[in-house]
């Protein structure tokens, strides 16, 4: 494992006053790709959103550490400045806000690496979206590719990608995978939530680590090969039972 860049320690995670996840521990090393799996409504988006600091998700006990710094109480945009960025599963649409305007702002704010962003834009086929309103009237593939671009382009320490492959055609999945590869090569750590067997197979050469969330708990953190084939074969509940984490 590379040097630890993200650590979630003994965290209880709440949404609007209700506890959704309990006692979560998670550790991500620099430049690593971690897969997070779990059935619908098991708390995957909750986990990523709470780590990112999106309201109304909150870590009530426990800590979120980024590169050794306790960021548990940092507001959302300050976490981004520290290098922790969330890619939304369903970003909202904006009328009148051009993609080019957002990119211009990001360039100014984060002093982006032009060769990295140019390669990323090419991989994700972003250029034809520049004159469009942000996410407005875009296809599923366009939305996911753009959201992945906006998240990775600032070359964060940790990118939290919430189902970047859902509702997306195979070509776009391939592009998103290539973008993840490029980011990893540049030392970005990626936490990837996915449901799709296709994506799980594609990322196998890039990672050894997977996590399984089930019934409000992170019940498995360990080797990809120990859990992913089990989930594909037996489903989430079957895998949880086989792992002895659910009876």
């Amino acid at each position, binding site marked *: 494992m590379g040097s630890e860049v993200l650590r979630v320690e003994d965290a209880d995670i709440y949404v609007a006053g209700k506890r959704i996840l309990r006692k979560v521990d998670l550790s991500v090393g620099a430049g690593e790709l971690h897969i997070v799996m779990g059935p619908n409504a098991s708390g995957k988006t909750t986990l990523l959103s709470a780590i990112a600091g999106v309201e109304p998700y909150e870590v009530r006990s426990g800590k979120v550490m980024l590169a050794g710094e306790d960021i548990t109480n940092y507001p*959302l945009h300050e976490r981004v400045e520290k290098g922790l960025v969330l890619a939304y599963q369903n970003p909202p649409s*904006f009328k*009148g*806000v051009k993609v080019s305007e957002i990119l211009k702002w*990001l360039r100014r704010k984060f002093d982006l690496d032009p060769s990295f962003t140019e390669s990323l834009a090419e991989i994700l086929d972003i250029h034809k979206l520049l004159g469009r309103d942000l996410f407005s009237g875009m296809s599923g593939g366009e939305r996911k590719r753009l959201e992945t671009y*906006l*998240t990775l382009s600032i070359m964060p320490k940790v990118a939290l990608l919430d189902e970047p492959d859902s509702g997306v055609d195979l070509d776009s999945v391939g592009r998103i995978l290539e973008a993840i590869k490029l980011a990893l090569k540049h030392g970005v750590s990626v936490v990837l939530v996915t449901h799709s067997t296709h994506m799980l197979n594609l990322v196998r050469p890039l990672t050894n680590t997977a996590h399984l969330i089930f019934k409000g708990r992170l019940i498995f953190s360990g080797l990809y090969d120990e859990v992913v084939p089990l989930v594909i074969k037996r489903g989430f509940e079957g895998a949880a039972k086989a792992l002895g984490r659910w009876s």
Partner: protein
Amino acid sequence: MLNRNMAEAARKALSKPAPYGPDVDLSKYDILNPRRIEPTEILEQERVRDASGRLGFTPEIVRKAGYVQVNEAYLASALVESLRKQGVVVMSTAEALRKLDIAREVAWTLIRPDTDKYVAATYLYGKEQGYFIYVPPGVKVRTPIYTCLLITRGMTAQLLHNIIYVADGAEANVVTGCSIAGLHAEALHIGVSEFFVGKGAKLTFAMIHAWSKGAVVRPRTAVKVAEGGRYVSYYMIYSAVHSLQSYPKVTLGRNASTSLYSIISGEGEGVYDVGSSATLAGPGSSAEIISRNLAKDKSRVVARAEIVGESGPSKGHIECMGLILSDTAYISTVPLLDSRNPEATLTHEAAIGKIGEDQLTYLMSKGFSEEEARALIIRGFLSVEAPDLPPQVKLSVDRVTELISSKGHG
């Protein structure tokens, strides 16, 4: 020289309120005895720079403006001379009425002096201050003609009569900025504007208003567009105001078209009652009315829009959007479609809301502070695609849009 019958009707209308907006006691203002001041070096005055700067007009634009009215004084610039070479006339309406038949023929034909007390006062006491612009047939003036109507003294009553005549096949872009020096000054501004767009002609008219908490503003505008002509209006107000009421009316001939955009940014305790009306009088005519309305503090914004389908086939569309930035602000949209012809297709859409929390949070998840995110969302809301605006005019509009969005924290 006043027309006796019109003057008589106007005198009777001096107490006639407008159908919309708060009524104004005109006796508070010095409308009977406007003081004259000398225009010498007036453009160097700090208060003029203050007033014009608030319009997003640089000193360079003001120096080159075709027409500058400061309180009661009028100045022409060197630009007027160069326009004259193309046969284009820019002068005060008073001078035009003395010298030009065309001015005498068209003046007060679209707006009757007895329309309401504001028009009546302008007819009777305004001394035909204001600008007259004439573009001869077939002449296309690419450079925007800037006109500035500025007030630098408190309690001033500025009563103006503006006429633009774009003859058949001609084109012109006119940008008018109206402003006042000092954010608290009390003043009355009435601008009666009559615009004529000839056959196959095109007039793009952008107007930017930056007033003060004490300003009472009553523009009165009527436009007649002849066969195949096009009229584009882009109106913006982004300052505090005591009250503003305006409802320009455009009448379209056969195959004529219009696009009427208004961007209203209400603040303080101001009342902004602003509308646009288009009458599809000729077959093949079309109109679109698009407004974006922001209200913060305790401002009250009423956005009216009306399309009358008199003839067909014809098309009209109203799009009226409101964004409320504070709990004490108010927006009302009043779209009205009035069809008198089965071949007229008229539609409207309207929506009022607040800035979406999901949008704010999303932008903050990409590193925007809340303030930056709000500004971006407001700028997006105000961004109306207006392809007819010349690039130079778009620059002025963008400057003002930037100003509005940067102070749009409700």
